[in-house]
């Protein structure tokens, strides 16, 4: 292990003496350890301060140098990701990334995890996750226009898992619905790889005029810092830092809840107030008080602005009496913001907040001395140089070694799983697996149409939102297959990228940029660090080839229970631009008699497939090979076809393979199920042909007279193309004929299998298991 960056302690101005606050505990090695700081890190704190920290200062360092704020174990790797392109207005480092989408508009977007809070309290954990990501977007000056959610749980046969799943979905729904932001998509998977640690990632997109962009920095000596929105309570102060009870005399365990409760109503007011504040010109900076609350928002604003701040804890509006500076600084109460008022505009800020029935209080001011100074009335309780606090967190490069178990699983011989006795029965088993089956049990709980701009709702490859007053639309998707990531992390990340891009082009959008959420286990273990590094490398390569730079993201590490880590899960949130709303395409077949065309090539790959998992309870084999250049050609070909107006439907072929992709095309939203008559001639093992998850494939349909033109465009781009069948009549049979067997299913059975799989499990009588 080596410390690789951070300002060297010698360069720093030492901090002035600060007396301990009466009642504060003594700083002992145990207390330091309780705050999650290693002995080396504590040495560095001593170097920066030139003295022992006060209790309050220890809390501040602990929060800022946590994995969450400090990116200790990932910063080095994140630098490998490409972040630039001519259309990137704001790359990583702000509350959200921003890209130019033309006609004077900019799109802000970001993804964020709330894994741990959701494991403790699924409803509130997920709800406050959505609340947080929304604030990240509107603090950029953008109005949120869509959310997506990427979820992972253990197997649905456990009562605990069903409790988590239903709580998370309700939490996401209640928050977004109340805010009036449509949900346009997401993903969910169920696999014991997530048994102890659900993954809850939420993504938000926001729209603004280019000139409305505002950043989260504090500058202008003497400018007021104001806390706006909800009051500060004792919620969410980090559990780990409170191992010993005598830490604070004023509060006992029960009054310091470990969960935060979301208040979407207050957030809706805060959204309107913030956008009005930004438009009024009364503020020069605004930042969400998210993780580590006032501490991180104030110190980061100072850090970015190259200035200092002085804030007074006695002036922070609190929900409960007797809160200590330590508690106020570290509280993670929701729906709060920190703003920097322009000189003399404090009154305007108050008036706008008052209109929205919210509070605004001056709690300090910007300084020019580069310090993060915290007062409690006249008493100084913390005085730390801001830059070393925000940027000086030691970052580590660790050793990564691939685990042996995975090598064994990847090399497993799968030839025994290639044949099928009863192809139709196996097909229904795969189609009815909760991982493949319709997710409408989820998204029928989400408002998908509010704002009256949703052109494609959840249930197709990507969600699409039109931009009023233009011909344009934006599309978004989240993707990641954790099993592939587990079996081979680099391929897993590349496949996540490739699938996301395919989902966008199938919807008629040009892939433009990504945000990502790196969900992993404990990086101090060499095999996990290996996964993390490999995934980042794979993602970086794909970003380059697809020209989709990373504009931001989130890292969630230590997702482990009893030493067992989740599958490496690098979730890709990709956004794309639809140049003309006429290009918007969905996955459902539309006309009887249309030609069904397969782009890309079938293979005999079965590794990591849903078939192996759902039918043989096996997670093994090598993930399918992914050729990033070929993927790029495929993307270009599909977009060219769509631009010519000859594509009636397009669908990415992923989990469940070609057979399930065809079923999804036939089923659409379930209202009119069209028949399918497809003949596959490939000389491949039946299981691989039907359910293999070979990359680079898209199923599309077009009028028969356009089939030749589709083939010609595919040829021009060097993309394999085959006309494999015909769209049948409404309520026609679903039939796939192959050299080794036939799948023949009635539309009724197809529909029930697909649409009722999750409701059958979830709407059975409750088995409460809180």
């Amino acid at each position, binding site marked *: 292990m080596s410390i690789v960056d951070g300002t060297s302690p010698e360069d720093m101005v030492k901090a002035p003496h600060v007396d301990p606050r009466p009642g504060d505990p003594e700083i002992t090695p145990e207390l330091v350890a309780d705050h999650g700081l290693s002995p080396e890190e504590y040495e560095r704190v001593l170097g920066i301060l030139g003295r022992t920290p006060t209790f309050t200062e220890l809390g501040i360092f602990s929060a800022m140098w946590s994995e969450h704020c400090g990116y200790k174990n990932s910063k080095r790797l994140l630098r490998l990701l490409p972040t630039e392109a001519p259309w990137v207005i704001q790359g990583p480092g702000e509350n959200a990334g921003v890209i130019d989408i033309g006609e004077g508009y900019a799109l802000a977007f970001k993804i964020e995890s709330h894994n741990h809070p959701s494991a403790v*309290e699924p409803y509130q954990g997920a709800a406050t996750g959505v609340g947080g990501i929304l604030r990240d977007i509107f603090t950029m000056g953008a109005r949120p226009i869509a959310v997506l959610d990427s979820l992972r749980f253990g197997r649905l046969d456990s009562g605990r898992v069903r409790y988590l799943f239903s709580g998370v979905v309700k939490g996401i729904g209640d928050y977004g619905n109340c805010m009036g932001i449509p949900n346009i998509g997401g993903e969910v998977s169920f696999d014991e790889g997530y048994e102890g640690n659900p993954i809850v990632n939420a993504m938000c997109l926001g729209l603004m005029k280019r000139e409305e962009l505002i950043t989260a920095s504090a500058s202008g000596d003497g400018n007021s810092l104001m806390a706006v929105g909800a009051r500060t309570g004792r919620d969410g102060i980090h559990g780990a830092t409170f191992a010993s009870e005598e830490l604070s005399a004023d509060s006992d365990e029960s009054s310091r*809840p470990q*969960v*935060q409760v979301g208040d979407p109503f207050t957030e809706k007011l805060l959204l309107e107030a913030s956008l009005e504040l930004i438009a009024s010109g009364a503020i020069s900076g605004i930042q969400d008080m998210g993780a580590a609350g006032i501490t991180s928002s104030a110190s980061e604003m100072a850090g970015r602005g190259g200035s200092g701040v002085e804030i007074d804890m006695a002036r922070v509006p609190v929900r*409960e009496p007797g809160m200590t500076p330590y508690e106020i600084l570290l509280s993670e109460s929701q729906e709060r913001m920190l703003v920097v008022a322009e000189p003399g505009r404090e009154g305007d800020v108050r008036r706008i907040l008052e209109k929205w029935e919210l509070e605004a209080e001056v709690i300090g001011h910007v300084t020019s001395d580069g310090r993060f100074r915290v007062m409690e009335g006249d008493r100084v309780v913390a005085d730390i140089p801001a830059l070393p606090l925000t940027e000086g967190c030691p970052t580590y490069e660790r050793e990564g070694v691939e685990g042996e178990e995975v090598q064994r699983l990847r090399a497993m011989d799968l030839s025994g799983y290639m044949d099928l006795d009863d192809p139709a029965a196996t097909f229904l088993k795969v189609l009815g697996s909760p991982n493949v089956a319709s997710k409408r049990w989820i998204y029928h709980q989400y408002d998908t149409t509010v704002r009256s701009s949703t052109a494609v709702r959840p249930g197709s490859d990507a969600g699409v939102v039109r931009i009023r007053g233009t011909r344009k639309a934006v599309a978004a998707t989240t993707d990641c297959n954790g099993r592939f990531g587990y079996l081979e992390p680099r391929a897993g990340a590349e496949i996540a990228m490739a699938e996301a891009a395919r989902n966008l082009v199938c919807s008629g959008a040009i892939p433009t940029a990504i945000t990502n959420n790196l969900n992993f286990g404990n990086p101090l273990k060499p095999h996990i660090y290996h996964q993390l590094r490999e995934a980042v490398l794979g993602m970086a390569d794909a970003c380059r080839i697809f020209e989709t730079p990373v504009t931001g993201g989130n890292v969630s590490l230590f997702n482990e229970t009893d030493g067992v880590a989740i599958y490496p899960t690098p979730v890709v949130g990709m956004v794309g631009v639809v140049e003309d709303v006429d290009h918007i395409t969905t996955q459902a077949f539309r006309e009887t008699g249309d030609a069904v065309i397969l782009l890309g090539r079938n293979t005999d790959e079965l590794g990591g497939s849903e078939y192996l998992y759902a039918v043989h309870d096996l997670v093994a084999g090598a993930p399918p090979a992914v050729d990033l250049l070929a993927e790029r050609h495929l993307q270009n070909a599909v977009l060219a076809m769509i631009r010519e107006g000859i594509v009636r439907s397009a669908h990415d072929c992923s989990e469940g393979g070609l057979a399930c992709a065809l079923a999804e095309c036939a089923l659409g939203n379930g209202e009119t199920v069209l028949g399918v008559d497809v003949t596959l001639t490939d000389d491949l093992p039946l299981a691989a042909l039907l359910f293999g998850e070979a990359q680079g494939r898209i199923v599309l349909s077009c009028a028969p007279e356009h089939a030749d033109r589709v083939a010609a465009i595919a040829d021009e781009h060097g993309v394999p193309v085959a006309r494999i069948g015909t769209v049948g009549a409404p309520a026609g049979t679903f039939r796939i004929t192959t050299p080794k067997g036939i799948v023949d299913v009635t539309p009724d059975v197809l529909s029930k299998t697909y649409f009722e799989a999750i409701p059958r499990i979830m709407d059975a009588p409750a088995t409460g298991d*809180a």
Partner: protein
Amino acid sequence: MSQYHLEIRVKPRPGLLDPQGKAIHHALNSLGWDGVHDVRVGKAMYIDLDAASEDEARNTAEAMCRKLLANPVTEDFEVTVVGVAEGATS
């Protein structure tokens, strides 16, 4: 066996934000009731239950609260036996 009538009150844990209580508090104040200082909102549940004794009825209800009716992370609960109909098992 008798049929017991129970009242169960489930209440947000102290210290936790209660957005609903906050909104109602605000509404009462703006309707002119400015003597209101605090509002917390929970659930009241009324359950009819067969049990051999009052103690058993109460214990059963408490078990229900732990398992289903209250969220142990965010809520506290209280059980009151409010009535009994002897021998009435419908």
